[in-house]
């Protein structure tokens, strides 16, 4: 037992070092001053660089819009397919997973003409990237929500709610969503992470998102660029931490501990 614990801890330490070392190196680089001194100038610049602040705002807005759009699109659709037209599940899954097989550069080439129209109709706001980002996160969000839906007998629960007098809207809001909260949160986390890290599409469509500006900053001031990257990582970590608190936890005793009265 003791040997097994030692192996476990060794693996944990090695993986920890592997993951933390680059981040520590980035922190070290971003705080490097003249000579061997330390400075937080690069970190302070995050709040003062107008382009960077604007890009952070845009990326956060894009993340929120993408999460909202993806969930609004996927949760009712997947619930409806599972409840009413289960034979369509394979087709919906195929369509949702399709973006996974198409490289981002191909997506950009394909949607560039469409975006000409989008810009013409909706203006050239970077928030219009939401449309393509929803497509981009579709496979990951689909898998997360599908895992949530498969974890509960949604058909029986919906039928029970219907027999008690619930409308389809009430079934969705009061029964389905609370019981697949874990899947929905996972989908949201993955979507946020993808949007905050996306570079190719934004860059090729000439929108200044966080990653595009970090790239530009890297050419101008590497220290600020690295500081922003570390900040983005910390932000994602904190977001995961917060969402983990919101995610449902198993309550009380398991069935194995309960005896029939």
């Amino acid at each position, binding site marked *: 037992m003791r040997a097994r614990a030692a192996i476990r801890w060794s693996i944990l330490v090695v993986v920890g070092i592997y993951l933390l070392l680059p981040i520590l190196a980035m922190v070290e680089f971003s705080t490097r001053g003249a000579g061997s001194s330390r400075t937080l100038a690069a970190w302070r610049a995050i709040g003062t660089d107008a382009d960077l602040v604007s890009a952070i705002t845009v990326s956060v807005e894009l993340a929120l819009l993408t999460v909202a759009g993806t969930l609004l699109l996927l949760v009712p659709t997947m619930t409806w397919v599972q409840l009413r037209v289960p034979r369509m599940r394979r087709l919906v899954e195929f369509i949702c997973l399709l973006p996974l097989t198409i490289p981002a550069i191909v997506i950009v080439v394909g949607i560039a003409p469409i975006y000409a129209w989008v810009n013409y109709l909706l203006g050239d706001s970077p928030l219009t990237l939401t449309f393509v980002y929803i497509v981009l996160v579709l496979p990951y969000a689909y898998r997360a929500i599908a895992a949530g839906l498969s974890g*509960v*007998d949604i058909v*029986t*629960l919906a*039928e*029970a*709610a*219907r*027999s*008690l*007098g*619930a*409308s389809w809207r*009430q079934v969705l809001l*009061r*029964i389905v969503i*609370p*019981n697949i909260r874990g899947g929905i949160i996972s989908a949201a986390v993955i979507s946020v992470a993808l949007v905050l890290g996306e570079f190719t599409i934004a860059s090729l469509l000439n929108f200044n998102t966080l990653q595009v500006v970090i790239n530009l900053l890297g050419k101008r001031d590497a220290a600020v660029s690295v500081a922003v990257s570390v900040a983005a990582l910390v932000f994602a970590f904190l977001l995961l931490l917060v969402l983990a608190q919101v995610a*449902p936890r*198993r*309550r*009380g*005793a*398991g*069935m194995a501990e*309960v*005896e*029939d*009265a």
Partner: protein
Amino acid sequence: MPDDVTGAGTLVEAPARPGVAVRLVELRRSFGPVVALDGLSLEIVPGELVALLGPSGCGKTTALRALAGLQELDSGQVFVDGRDITRVSAHRRGMGMVFQAYSLFPNMTARENVAYGLRLRRVPAAQRRKRAGELLDLVGLASHAGHYPDQLSGGQQQRVALARALAIQPKVLLLDEPLSALDAKVRAQLRDEIRAVQREVGTTTLFVTHDQEEALAMADRVGVMSAGRLQQIASPVELYERPRTAFVAEFVGLTNRLAGTAGGGSVQLLGARVPLLPGSVESGPVTVLVRPESLLVTPAEPDAAERAAGRVLAATFLGALCRVRVRLDDGTVLLAQVSSVDVTQLAPGTPVRVGVRPAPVLAIAGSA
């Protein structure tokens, strides 16, 4: 606010809604080439508990789901309390349903589950809480009101599901094999509890099961289904003692097939003349369906010479009763039920005489 959930009296002490009549007329439903309902018609009188019994795929669950509004029909009509509800959506039918699978909402406590239907009907919170408490008390789980489903055993979950179904004072209570996921001991206990609760609240109930013991023990009438049709519907005693078809005779209880010769309203069988049930083939060589308890097995003695001779193959002890397998001299193997007191004389290999009690039997065409 619907008046069916606003009475001041408690559900338990004074049922506000006495049972209503249910009528299913010529229900038909196919799933591709599979015919689930083939012109099923059924009437349930107010307050009655009817069980639909049959093998898997016979259409019993489809019939129950059609009544609940969860299954669309190809044709046919559903009447509840004299009103045609065939086209009424499931959530407007006012049916209480307990499912085979555990169906409590995992995100709600037992009390919240029971109160959910009342909440949908906008019953005030205090009243909801009171009624949920009464219903949980009725099913013996008042102390578990704050427990989540994953803190309850299977039997407890089904009790809460029953309370939840009854909370809305349903027009009809629908039970879709609610005991099949439970172990034998809990199943027997809960079976009696469900029956007692149903009698207390007086709700018209349709109960679907493939377990004949459950159906016979709980129901006022049992309908035996096969291939989407109702073969027979009758009281448990009548169904068992006077089956109308070979399917019913063989599906409900154990049955021996014996060759006999029918004529004059009776059949010559194992040295005796036995009256025939209505629906029997009334003349010529027939196959007679005989219950194990209708057979008389005694050690071979000269005064029983008119009975058929045979030897005991095996005896199975079942407590107060024993099942004895006998091979007759003509090669026919029979299953008889005897008292455990008598089985000491019927060890395997013992020569015996087999007769039949003069209770009416069903005779069908063909050889045994």
